[in-house]
């Protein structure tokens, strides 16, 4: 008691920090579990597994057929692994961005529970990020199966022994956090928008599919559009993932060949931090406006 009187802020500050951490972890953990249930419990596990992989595999197969028709089945051109791997890992972009941002619309309009989440002892941004984890898990299955399919059936030049695993896992880790923060940014905007912009995740993921060099080198874009790709962290992330898995094949394209792996990693970290800070600021702003305008419990599913 005497200690508390001499330094009244010490104990409460520690306590508040610990409470905040514990609250954040609890929000994340429960949101992850909830997100997984929502995503998966409409079907039995086998059907759900099939559902989760058919869509991305079909997306990859469209590109394979398109490439196969024009290249007359010659899959040894470096462009093929470039397209194939970019498309495979871009699955994460769609999953994470849509997963996090869709949670706002889903809770507010469909389940009508967003207002209850707001009055519960949880951290809303952490809760939204947790809701995206389920999509990350299903996305990971899809990515693994797509890459495996490429290696087994399309002679993707990927060698487990020569891949740069440390670079791959570091890039993947940073990339997933970066995508989750971009999802939070979209989720923040969704707080202010009506129901049908549930498409916002798909729309942004679709747009970045073009500008991030996921399925074609950025040089194919008109020169005036390329800067959009250069300011997007996804561009550098995909390049790093390609380089870490198929090394020299990925470096055959001139767009980012002037950068070393370390430089690319530095740019990715820098841009990810920037997007992370923007996401947090955007969430605070949109959250305040949404509360002021009474948008947290509105339904607009007309």
């Amino acid at each position, binding site marked *: 008691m005497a200690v508390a009187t001499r330094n009244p802020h010490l104990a409460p500050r520690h306590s508040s920090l610990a409470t905040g951490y514990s609250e954040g972890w609890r929000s994340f953990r429960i949101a992850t579990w909830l997100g997984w249930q929502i995503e998966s419990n409409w079907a039995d596990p086998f059907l759900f597994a099939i559902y989760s992989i058919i869509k991305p595999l079909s*997306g990859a197969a*469209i590109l394979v*057929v398109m490439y*196969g028709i024009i290249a007359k089945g010659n899959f040894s051109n470096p462009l093929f692994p470039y397209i194939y791997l970019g498309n495979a890992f871009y699955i994460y972009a769609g999953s994470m961005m849509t997963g996090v941002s869709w949670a706002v619309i889903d809770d507010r309009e469909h389940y009508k529970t967003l207002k209850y989440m707001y009055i519960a002892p949880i951290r809303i941004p952490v809760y939204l990020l947790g809701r995206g984890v389920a999509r990350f898990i299903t996305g990971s299955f899809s990515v693994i199966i797509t890459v495996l399919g490429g290696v087994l059936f399309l002679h993707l030049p990927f060698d487990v022994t020569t891949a740069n695993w440390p670079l791959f896992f570091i890039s993947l880790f940073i990339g997933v956090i970066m995508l989750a923060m971009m999802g939070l940014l979209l989720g923040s905007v969704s707080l202010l928008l009506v129901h049908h912009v549930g498409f916002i995740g798909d*729309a942004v993921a679709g747009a970045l599919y073009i500008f991030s060099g996921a*399925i074609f*080198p950025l040089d194919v874009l008109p020169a005036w559009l390329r800067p959009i790709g250069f300011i997007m962290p996804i561009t550098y992330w995909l390049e790093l993932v390609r380089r870490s898995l198929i090394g020299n094949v990925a470096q055959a394209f001139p767009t980012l060949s002037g950068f070393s792996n370390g430089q690319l990693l530095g740019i990715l970290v820098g841009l990810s931090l920037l997007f992370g800070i923007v996401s947090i600021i955007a969430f605070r702003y949109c959250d305040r406006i949404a509360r002021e305008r009474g948008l947290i419990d509105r339904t607009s599913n007309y």
Partner: protein
Amino acid sequence: MSSHSSLAQHPGKVSGWRLFLKTVLARAYPRVIGQQREKSWMFFDIVLPLGGVIAYVLVYKAIGAPAEYVGFVVMGGAMTAFWMNVLWSMSSQLYWEKEQGNLALYIMSPNSMMAVLLGMALGGMVATLLRAIAIVLLGSLMFQVQYIVTSFFQLLAVFTLAMAALYGMGMMTASLFLLLSREAWHLSNLAQEPIYLATGFYFPIKSLPFWVALGASIIPLTLGMDAMRQLVFPSGFKIGFLSVGVEISVLMALCVAFLVGAKLLLAHMEKLAIREGRLTESRR
């Protein structure tokens, strides 16, 4: 007072085919007018497929494909608008209606569910046509696609038949969705990329193995797009899966099959859904 009584006694009731027609028009109205009122829908309906078109066109450019492949993609992109409309606003529509509590009102009102579905189809088709035209125009201007129509009459016939068969299929699957709940959303979601692949939205269907292409022909857009590509692109005849005449005949058969199927299945599913108490359930 007397005129009021008279109105109450003769409220202008219609029945028979007039009621059917009025129901069709009434259900089509919000599809055509409502969708134009919400500008953001129009934006997303055009921009999302256009984004896909741009991405696939640039892939073709990156791998050095002949110019007509760009045209194939633009046409495929425009047709995705119809597929998305059938999927989300026809097939799964009765699920949405159930979620919002309207389905029971439809069933208890003294008109035909077939007319309601037909109205949805008609309205959806007109509204989506505007979006598809926008996608074709924008895509063609962006990538300088050139069209040489060999037969306007056949082109019109193919398009009309493909649309009738496609929306007939939508009406038929809508009745299946009567029994579904939350899984309806996932099933619609699933029927996108696999269908884009199987029906050749972005490449000639002839590129797929014969039996795969034949199986995919059950979806009217497969043969519809193949015939249209043959009719509007100079080298289209080289990539045709079947001759245009045969494809028109198959599309006619699909039209009849799907519309009759829709009528029969709707009656059956409605009874089943009522018996199993699924018309008002909401398993979220």
